[in-house]
């Protein structure tokens, strides 16, 4: 037998060896076929999978462009901040585990579980699927802790993000506006093509209006990662740097803006101011009170939310210069004057006797303050702001619609094409409007358009609804021979090196024919009103070295104090700039609005002193 020691193996062994050999051939064949299958037949697929395995793409957020005033001072720029983000899709599926993680996270971020859940829910409503930013401005200690304990916080990451910074706080807050995460509706719009949930876009003000210039192009970094998804040292493969947004220079003049804001704030009352170049519609200053610090909008506390969003009376976010519905008081009288002159309802020389009141039917309309000025012509009527004179013109144009047509021609009651969002349309009340209101059952009183209605409109009271911006356009048209400028705050787009990429010179809206003699007569009346003894704002502008033409306005608001208005163009007689100021409950026009306008013009002419006065001697009338 072969099993004995020393025996030579026998033939039975050969069979067993052959069997093992056969098995071995089969096994090697299996390995070889599998190898062939993996590497040759499906190699390309695995190669693709391997390539996908080793890199991760990270979006590199581009900083938004800076917003500058016309002198290049920074109104808005960026600071970097560390934001705690949560990718909800990577949270544990198990509800208890998820709860545990969120609780751990809340402990670190000083947020309650409820607050975290609410933040997630709100984030999902804005843009489902995007990482939710739980908290901005987290500290480095938290960042390091999270990095060291990554496996305990799936889905949690810290991103370096750019946050808007406002070096001057509330300066031009309503103009610059605010940014926020893009929402689902915006994502569908063509101008936001290519953006993704979580991206930041302008929401208000120039941030919104010039978003496409301010918004940069995000970059992309491809990083080689290991099996844990951690970047390998030196493993940065491709880096497309983000291209930062372009800078936007505004038409705002820092001195005018500062003067307007501080003058307005000094009253502590709601109001607005606007200063515009009458020649091209550049807004040199625009402000609204009460105002806000746009930085508060980034992550408002509950108290801030209440103050900013839920106060319907003060409504700090509303730009009263463009988003208001105001009657204008006597500042409207230039429109009445032009309408009557152009339509031959009155001549420049016709005196109208002002005995303090006018009676139409059973209704008596009185001068403000019970004054009576005797016989007044147009210039004089403007100087002293004779209501009776303009009541009379209103009465004469009662059935003609001429007043409404003139107002509309000068830009009242329609949108101006202003570059910022939210401007109100306003309303020039008319016979048709009244009839339609009655027909729709919306009128408070079921009555036709009356002479009284037209008389009220003639002095800027009653149902008139406009805003300081529209008044600025109308006064600018008077000053510039009838051009309806398109107001704008965007001046030019610059790249980071200061090269001008684009200038904004919007075309005028239209041209109104104004007879030059009428124009100079109206301007003369306003000039006398501001700077001749007996003029309504002589007390304010009497000593101002620059000749101006300004009109006060006082709106009676039932249940409220009078609203103060002032509209002024300067220098007289060839104005370059218009300023409109209104102060709710500010009393007579000369009480608050005119002094504020004075401070604004002082700031303007201090700066542009070399260009002033010389042309027209500058003697206050």
């Amino acid at each position, binding site marked *: 037998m*072969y099993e*004995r020691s020393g025996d030579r193996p026998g*033939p039975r062994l050969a069979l067993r*060896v052959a069997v093992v050999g056969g098995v*071995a051939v089969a096994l090697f064949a299996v390995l*070889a076929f599998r190898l062939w299958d993996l590497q040759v037949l499906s190699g*390309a*697929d695995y190669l693709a*999978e391997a390539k996908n*395995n080793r890199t991760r793409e990270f979006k590199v957020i581009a900083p938004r462009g800076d917003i500058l005033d016309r002198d290049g001072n920074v109104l808005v720029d960026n600071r970097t901040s560390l934001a705690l983000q949560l990718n909800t899709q990577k949270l544990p599926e198990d509800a208890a585990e998820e709860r545990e993680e969120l609780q751990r996270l809340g402990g670190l971020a000083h947020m309650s579980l409820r607050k975290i859940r609410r933040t997630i829910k709100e984030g999902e409503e804005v843009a489902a699927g995007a990482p939710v930013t739980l908290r901005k401005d987290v500290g480095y200690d938290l960042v390091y802790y999270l990095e060291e304990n990554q496996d305990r916080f799936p889905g949690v990451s810290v991103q370096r993000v750019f946050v808007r910074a406002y070096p001057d706080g509330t300066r031009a807050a309503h103009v610059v506006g605010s940014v926020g995460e893009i929402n689902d509706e915006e994502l569908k719009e063509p101008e936001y093509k290519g953006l993704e949930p979580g991206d930041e876009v302008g929401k208000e003000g120039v941030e919104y209006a010039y978003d496409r210039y301010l918004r940069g192009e995000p970059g992309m970094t491809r990083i080689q990662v290991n099996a844990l998804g951690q970047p390998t040292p030196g493993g940065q493969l491709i880096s497309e740097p983000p291209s930062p947004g372009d800078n936007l220079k505004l038409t705002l003049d820092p001195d005018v803006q500062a003067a307007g804001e501080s003058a307005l704030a000094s009253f502590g009352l709601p109001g607005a101011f606007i200063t515009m170049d009458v020649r091209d519609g550049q807004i040199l200053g625009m402000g609204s009170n009460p105002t806000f610090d746009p930085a508060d909008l980034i992550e408002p506390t509950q108290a801030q939310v209440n103050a900013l969003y839920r106060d319907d009376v003060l409504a700090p976010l509303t730009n009263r210069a463009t988003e208001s519905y105001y009657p204008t008081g006597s500042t409207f009288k230039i429109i009445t004057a032009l309408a009557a002159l152009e339509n031959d309802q009155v001549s420049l020389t016709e005196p109208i006797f002002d005995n303090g009141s006018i009676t139409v039917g059973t209704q008596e309309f009185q001068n403000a303050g019970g004054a009576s000025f005797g016989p007044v012509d147009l210039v004089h009527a403007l100087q002293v702001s004779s209501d009776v004179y303009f009541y009379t013109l209103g009465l004469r144009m009662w059935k003609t619609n001429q007043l409404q047509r003139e107002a509309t021609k000068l830009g009242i009651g329609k949108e101006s094409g202003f570059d910022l969002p939210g401007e109100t349309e306003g309303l020039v009340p008319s016979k048709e409007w009244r009839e339609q209101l009655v027909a729709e059952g919306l009128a408070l009183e079921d009555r036709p358009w009356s002479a009284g209605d037209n008389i009220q409109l003639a002095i800027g009271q009653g149902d008139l609804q406009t805003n300081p911006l529209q008044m600025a356009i109308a006064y600018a048209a008077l000053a510039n021979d009838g051009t309806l400028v398109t107001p704008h705050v965007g001046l030019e787009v610059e790249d980071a090196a200061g090269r001008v990429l684009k200038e904004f010179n919007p075309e005028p809206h239209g041209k109104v024919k104004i007879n030059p003699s009428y124009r100079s007569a109206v301007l003369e009346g306003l000039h006398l009103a501001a700077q001749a003894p007996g003029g309504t704002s002589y007390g304010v502008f009497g000593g101002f070295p620059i000749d101006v033409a300004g009109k006060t306005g006082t709106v009676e608001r039932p249940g409220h104090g009078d609203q103060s208005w002032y509209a002024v163009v300067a220098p007289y007689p060839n104005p370059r700039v218009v300023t409109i100021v209104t102060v709710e409950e500010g009393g007579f026009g000369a009480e608050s609005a005119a002094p504020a306008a004075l401070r604004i013009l002082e700031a303007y002419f201090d700066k542009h002193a070399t260009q002033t006065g010389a042309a027209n001697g500058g003697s206050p009338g």
Partner: protein
Amino acid sequence: MMYATRTRQASPEPFAVRVGIAERLGLANLDWQLALAAIALVGFSVFTLAQATTNDVPGSPGYFVDRQAIYGLLGVIGMLVLTRIDYSRFRELRVGIYTFLCASISLVFVFGFTARGSRRSLDLPFFSFQPSELGKVLLILALAGFVIDGARRGSPWQRTLRYLCLGMAPAALVFLQPDLGTSLVFAVATLAVMYFGGVPWTHFAVIGATIVTLVALVLVAAPKVGVPVLHGYQEERLTSFLHPSEHASGAGYQQNQSVVAIGSGEKTGRGDRATQTRLDFVPERHTDFIFAVIGERYGFMGAAFVLSLYALLFWRALKIVTLSKNSYGALVAGGIAVSLLFQVFVNVGMNLGIMPITGIPLPLMSYGGSSVLATFLAVGVLQSIHIQARLSQKGRFAW
């Protein structure tokens, strides 16, 4: 009948009188193909490690390469030393060998240091040594002796059970370390020696049926009644390859990554652009998953080259079974051949995603002193059998 034919044809130089240098060193009758296959494999291992592991140990780019080269060199020396020894001496030392085997494995429980939750190594002055690796050879040498020695004692069934017990005792010790892979190699080596020792086919059928039943009990029945035999990770590894996608980030993860690595190598490999095995996607790339490194870096050409070296190695080992001058040599060679085949198949299969993860190194390729040395010693024993066979043939012709 092939065997008889071969003996008649042997020794073409009956009148050779000059004794060459190779003859003096005892290398003349070396199985050169076997030796070259083994040396080529370890050489390729060093080459691969040199390219793939330079960043693995910070500040010491040659850590694995240098050591593997030294192990390979020591292995070759060990192999050459064994060629000078008549392997038949091991049969006489079987009891001593067996005792040493069991004792050294048991020592690990007392003195061994723990690596990744299992104690497999002894910390010797210069390197840590894994007795179970050397045990693969020792078990075959001892068991073959027992089989030859006990051929006439007891009934066939008693013999079969005796061999099984002798083989399974060290296998169980290794299993308890716990080292499932090596214990499986022990078991396979035991069965291989029995197989070549002439244990009847019917016995293997019964053993096979028993194994199937046991596996079913261990994997299915025992956990159901709450008696875990395998560690959780062992069971998961053993079963996850059956449905890898369910374990994409768990136990099946390593295998998925290994399959992706090999597949991505395509025909000619990715060379230094390899990412799967360079960036930690594939774990244990210098040991259990070195085949994935080869597959990704050198593609089908490299991987097929390695497989053919193993095929050559196995073919020569099987050849030596038939050449052996005595039954002991045949049994030892058969045991070594089958255990090598088993290790290669299981390891490469594991890398290719068709076998479970069992922690069996790829002989001569995987980094590790114990494994490389033990495999070279096994090859040395094969050489010894080859040389003795040649010498006995020549002797018969000479005298």
